[in-house]
């Protein structure tokens, strides 16, 4: 306990003056009485005390003066040097989800087996809560979640280590550099499993959870979907971070495919591709690729999964201009045969997977309804200028629709470019004057789209080209867009989070002693002075 402004204690010299001023004047008249005892008894009976003899009032006055001067002098407890702010660097990378208890399953006894297992993340947050509970209240705590989304929590949320999500993502933070950047008056506490770090901070407290372990991971899965053909081939990239070659079990299951299990021997750290043909079920559903390695604590990278949609019904309806020849019907028949579908009548109540229109006019919402139109004028849209013998100049070679197709032999006699709706052109031509014009566009996207050509099949040699059947099948697939493609629901872990064999390690270090701010007792002294004065006014 000391005084911040000790020199102000000189004001205590005024206390005797105040005491002297507080004394009532001395009586000028002296009355000698033979009944002094009676006077004293009368005073006692009335609970009176001579004002100049009131020791209690004098003491209260002295106390009030002393307390006031002590407040003015800045009485308080001196500060203790040390950090008063704590920044916790909490590793929330994907490797923190590893369950080290799972690696010991083989050796686990009954007691440990009965205890609930916790991941590194749960261990880290639980220990951090315990640690932060012992941190003095005046210390400002900030928790930085490092790994995946960078989150910062302050105050009570930080002390309770809440609302930090689940571990995931790469440890894109260099803890050593981050700890070094913090000011010197800030205490640092790093909680990590050391994964993805070359070294650990030498500054501040350190808590390392987990340890070295073997791990097998599914790096990536590529599905070669033959839809509308039933073939589905999964190309699975696997890797094992082990000391020696390890045999892993790969299992592909789910509602979308027939289950397949296969044992693969993986060389340490060498990615290996496993190609597995699958039989896709029409109902669709989840597809899960699982790799199993004994003692693998990190389950997050052992599974890759996606959702396959139900296979669309390959029904094709045809609307053809009678003057357009047989090309439309023939094309529909050929397409139905290729995708194992069928041609249905184009009635109002028919439900068709694709509407193939050749010439004429139709009420169609481009991009909404799945359709393949050849020289068809949409209702409410003028036919526009007729373009005679436009020259096919190029096609979008990056578009999967026409990539790798040879359309150089395409000849068009008559085209109506103004009948095309708004969309992405993929076939280009040139007017006789050399002006570029689109000859085909794709309207819409996502799960539904429609393809529009500016010419009828009869007005071109497209049906005669070898690329025509392939173009038809691609158009059918394109009309369904992403509605028929697989949706990955569990991407692979980022690199660097899977090799658990050699994490950075360092002995744990406790939190440094924190500083204590100066505690001022000025307010207490002032209140005490006021209370003593009030008590003095009440005392008689």
């Amino acid at each position, binding site marked *: 306990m000391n005084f911040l402004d000790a020199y102000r204690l000189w004001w205590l010299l005024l206390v005797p003056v105040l005491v002297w001023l507080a004394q009532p004047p001395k009586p000028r008249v002296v009355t000698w009485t033979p009944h002094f005892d009676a006077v004293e008894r009368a005073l006692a009976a009335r609970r009176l005390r*001579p004002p100049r003899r009131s020791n209690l009032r004098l003491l209260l006055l002295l106390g009030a003066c002393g307390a006031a001067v002590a407040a003015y002098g800045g009485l308080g407890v001196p500060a203790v040097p040390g950090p008063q702010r704590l920044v916790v660097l909490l590793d929330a990378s994907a490797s923190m989800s590893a369950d080290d208890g799972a690696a010991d399953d083989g050796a686990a006894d009954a007691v440990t087996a009965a205890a609930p297992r916790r991941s590194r993340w749960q261990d880290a947050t639980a220990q951090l809560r315990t640690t932060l509970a012992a941190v003095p209240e005046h210390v400002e705590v900030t928790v930085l979640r490092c790994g995946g989304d960078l989150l910062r929590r302050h105050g009570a949320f930080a002390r309770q280590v809440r609302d930090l999500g689940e571990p995931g993502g790469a440890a894109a933070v260099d803890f050593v550099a981050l700890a070094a950047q913090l000011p010197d008056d800030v205490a640092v506490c790093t909680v990590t499993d050391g994964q993805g770090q070359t070294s650990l901070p030498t500054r501040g407290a350190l808590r390392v959870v987990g340890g070295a372990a073997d791990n097998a991971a599914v790096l990536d899965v590529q599905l070669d979907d033959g839809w509308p053909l039933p073939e589905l081939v999964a190309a699975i990239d696997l890797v094992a971070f082990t000391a020696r070659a390890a045999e892993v079990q790969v299992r592909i299951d789910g509602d979308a495919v027939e289950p397949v299990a296969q044992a693969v021997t993986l060389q340490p750290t060498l990615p290996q591709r496993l190609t597995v043909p699958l039989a896709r079920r029409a109902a669709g559903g989840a597809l899960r690729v699982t790799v199993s390695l004994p003692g693998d604590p990190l389950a997050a990278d052992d599974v890759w999964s996606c959702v396959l949609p139900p296979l669309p019904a390959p029904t094709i309806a045809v609307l053809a201009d009678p003057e357009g020849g047989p090309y439309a019907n023939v094309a529909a028949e050929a397409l139905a045969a290729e995708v194992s579908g069928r041609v249905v009548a184009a009635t109002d109540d028919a439900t068709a997977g694709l509407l193939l229109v050749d010439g004429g006019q139709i009420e169609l919402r481009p991009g909404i309804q799945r359709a393949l139109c050849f020289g068809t004028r949409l209702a409410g849209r003028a036919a526009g200028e007729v373009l005679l013998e436009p020259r096919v100049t190029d096609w979008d070679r990056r578009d999967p629709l026409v990539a790798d197709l040879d359309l150089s032999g395409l000849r068009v006699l008559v085209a109506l470019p103004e009948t095309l709706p708004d969309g992405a052109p993929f076939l280009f031509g040139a007017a006789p004057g050399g002006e570029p014009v689109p000859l085909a566009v794709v309207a819409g996207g996502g799960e539904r789209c429609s393809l529009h050509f500016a010419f009828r099949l009869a007005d071109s040699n497209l049906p005669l080209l070898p690329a025509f059947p392939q173009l038809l099948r691609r158009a059918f697939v394109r009309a369904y867009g992403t509605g028929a493609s697989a949706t990955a629901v569990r991407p692979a872990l980022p690199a660097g989070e899977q090799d658990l064999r050699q994490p950075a390690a360092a002995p744990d270090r406790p939190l440094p002693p924190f500083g204590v701010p100066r505690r001022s007792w000025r307010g207490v002294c002032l209140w005490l002075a006021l209370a003593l004065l009030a008590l003095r006014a009440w005392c008689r």
Partner: protein
Amino acid sequence: MTRSFEPPALPEPFEAPFVQLLHELLARGLSPASRRDEHHRARRSQLGQSGTFVGHRRYAHGDDLRRLDWAAYARTGVLFVKQLAEDERRTATLLLDLSPRMCLGAPQRRLAALRLAAVVGGLALRQLDGVQVLAPGAKALTVAAYSGAGDLVELLRHLARLPVAAATEQEVLATCEPRMGTGHVHWISDFARPDAAVRVLRALRRRGLGVTGWLPAIAEDERFAARGFVDVADPLTGQTLALPIDAGLVAAIEKELLRTRQRQDRVFTECGARLLRWPAPAADDLRRSAYEPILAACAP
């Protein structure tokens, strides 16, 4: 805080007019119109420790246990004290309080006390064999004895020379006990602390002495005159109290004064003595009627 008490100047107590009045009073003698109860009271006070058996009376607290009549107790089951008529009781004792408190009052209580002692002592010199003057605290003048009417002048001179001196209860007892033989004791004081007189009264009663307490009453015994912010001081100890004296406090003080008087009466009654309050006349008040109550009280 204390102050030193300077006693106010005391007028000459025995000036010629008073001496003349004293002679007139003594020449007149005791009033023949003494009432019977006064006679009985005086007779009771003359009952002593030795002499002729005259009867019994009920035992009272403070009586000498040696005088209990055990035979009467065996017969009746009640404690009785044997009463003896002294063969020789021809002296009186004046016990004077010389404390500084006696110097206060208007008129001064000390002046009245000295004149009271002169009258009582003169009567004793005139009608008895002698008078003994005890003044505790007066050092060399503590004890004096006179006999015969001719010693009246010496008695007055002795009284006039007595100093202002405070005496504790123990000093009073130490002065009285070895010198108490027979006769009657006239204790002249203000009895401001009645409880301090209890031991003395009981000691005198154990010796079978009759005691009459004389209290020269002054106006301050009933009224407290000071007002305002004053220093109230005790002449005995010099202690002072700076007090704002208002009506409420005055009422409380006068209530205590009343309790003091009641306590004085109770103490004397409990100890089998009598207390006489004699209104102290002014220094120049030499009317015979002012002193006749003394003669009436001393009548046998």
